[in-house]
């Protein structure tokens, strides 16, 4: 089954799918014994809508089609959910997922994604680069005269990187309205809550002052997610969607917990989490 066959705009169906993808992500993190469940779960609803809500124009049987929309997971550590999505969409098989973070992984399912894996556009792992790379894609797409869009998911901690704001200025300069950034604003980074680490607020004002088309939604409200993704492009401004999310969303003992940024669950926690994600 490919992504197009799976595509639905039914909100309840998409929420169900997002839970299934969270379970799959947690399974491969559990099997690998390492990974990042917290940031995978906060981004799960957003990525489900993009890939399976008919938003992203893509074809897993032709992953290099020049007219495709691009998707970049700039917060590359959320690879657990990324590979789960790629498997569900048909870029790789579910069986491939067993090699996540394992040596000799045939599909190169590294801790952070790389274009050797079908469906992955660029390597990640160093925060702050994805918005610039995505902007380069947006510029190239326009030079070719295509209508394709570029979606970039950024972490909230990630936008503490100065390069994000360099890219924000550049996309304004070139009026790259086909560039859509999504801030997975889960309020928690590796060391501490983002606010304590270095506060991002007032976040909408920041993007507004860079002349972006700013939207703010609940990143777990599937209806709000779908509606914002279905908006027509701004005539000239690049778009940012500030999505308020919860780190570890869906598993009560992971939600909002810094401790679940980058650890795999124990057997007991894994089983408990699966029940909550059912």
């Amino acid at each position, binding site marked *: 089954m490919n992504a197009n066959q799976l595509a639905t705009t039914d909100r309840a169906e998409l929420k169900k799918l997002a839970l299934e993808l969270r379970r799959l992500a947690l399974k491969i993190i559990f099997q690998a014994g390492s990974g990042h469940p917290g940031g995978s779960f906060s981004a799960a609803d957003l990525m489900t809508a993009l890939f399976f809500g008919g938003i992203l124009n893509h074809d897993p049987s032709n992953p290099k089609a020049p007219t495709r929309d691009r998707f970049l997971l700039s917060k590359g550590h959320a690879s657990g959910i990324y590979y789960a999505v790629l498997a569900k969409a048909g870029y790789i098989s579910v069986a491939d997922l067993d090699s996540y973070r394992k040596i000799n992984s045939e599909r190169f399912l590294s801790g952070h994604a790389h*274009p050797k894996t079908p469906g992955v556009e*660029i390597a990640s792992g160093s925060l702050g680069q994805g918005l*610039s*790379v995505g902007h*380069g894609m*947006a*510029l*190239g797409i326009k030079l070719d005269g295509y209508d394709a869009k570029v979606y970039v998911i950024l972490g909230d901690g990630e936008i503490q990187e100065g*390069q994000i704001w360099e890219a924000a200025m550049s996309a304004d300069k070139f009026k790259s309205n086909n560039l859509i950034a999504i801030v997975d604003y889960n309020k928690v980074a590796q060391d501490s809550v983002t606010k304590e680490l270095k506060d991002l607020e007032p976040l909408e004002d920041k993007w507004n002052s860079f002349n972006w088309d700013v939207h703010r939604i609940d990143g777990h409200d599937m209806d709000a997610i779908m509606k914002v993704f279905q908006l027509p492009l701004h005539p000239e401004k690049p778009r940012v969607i500030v999505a308020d999310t919860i780190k570890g969303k869906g598993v009560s003992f992971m939600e909002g917990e810094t401790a679940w940024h980058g650890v795999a669950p124990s057997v007991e926690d894994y089983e408990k989490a699966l029940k909550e994600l059912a």
Partner: protein
Amino acid sequence: MKDAATRDGYGDALLELGADDARIVVLDAGVSDSTRSKKFGGKYPDRFFNMGIAEADMVCTAAGLATTGKIPFATGFACFLLGRTMDQILVSIAYSNTNVKLVGTHTGLAVGEDGPSAQMIVDVAYTRAMPNMIVVQPADWEETRQATRALADYEGPAYLRLGRPKVKGIFDGSYKFAIGKGRVVKEGSDLVIFASGIMVQESLEAMKLLERENISVTLVNISTLKPIDRELIIELSTRHRAIMTAEDHNYIGGLGDAVGEVLLDAQISRPFKRIAVRDQFAETGTGAELFEKYGLSARHIAQVARESIKSIE
């Protein structure tokens, strides 16, 4: 033969490429007048992206453009183009294997008066150390023109190292640049000098001094620093009694080390001297004054060559 800075050869080549190939796009970080990419920008404004003083953003934007089938030349002063962006180049260009050409101008002590923060002397070391990256440093205008075109045809990440000052023409239109190939500029018999970039010109001056003393030198232009021309280095080193290298770069990680690695691997044992910056920051002054004070001038090359020959006689 045209006397001009290598950065001028780059600017002129971009104009030719712009006309030949719609995939060529050029980026600059707010110094396009100095890097000479401005010429391309004037003629092909739709394919020219001045990213402002934001090198990290620029090199990643170039990587994104490359994934759409464009051939981006990301241009800037080497100090900042590379110095500020090692991580971006490693992840979005080298590791991702995107078809980006990094072009750093104003390299080495030859930059002169702007001082050590503007004199890039570690770029070859770190670009050579990056998997997937090739490194090219042409010696004159003609070779730069050809090398720029060759890099456009080459699929993969590359660093093109260019200079600020005007240099003497060494090659004419009959010269054929090839990635990975060194070229004998002058054939001698006693000692071989492998030189790169502006140091080819400096070595030619040194050879005039040495000729008067009947020291016969073979001068080789090594314009591809990676992958280096192993065969030529082994063949010529075996045929000469002493070996030297000459580069306007720190002596760690540059041409001298690259040649030294070949010699060690091939178990070639000869007196081996490296003309390079001796692991120190220089100071302000003209390029010529700095070359003299920091041991890169023709006089130094000649002196080291003389001592080398004396040591084996």
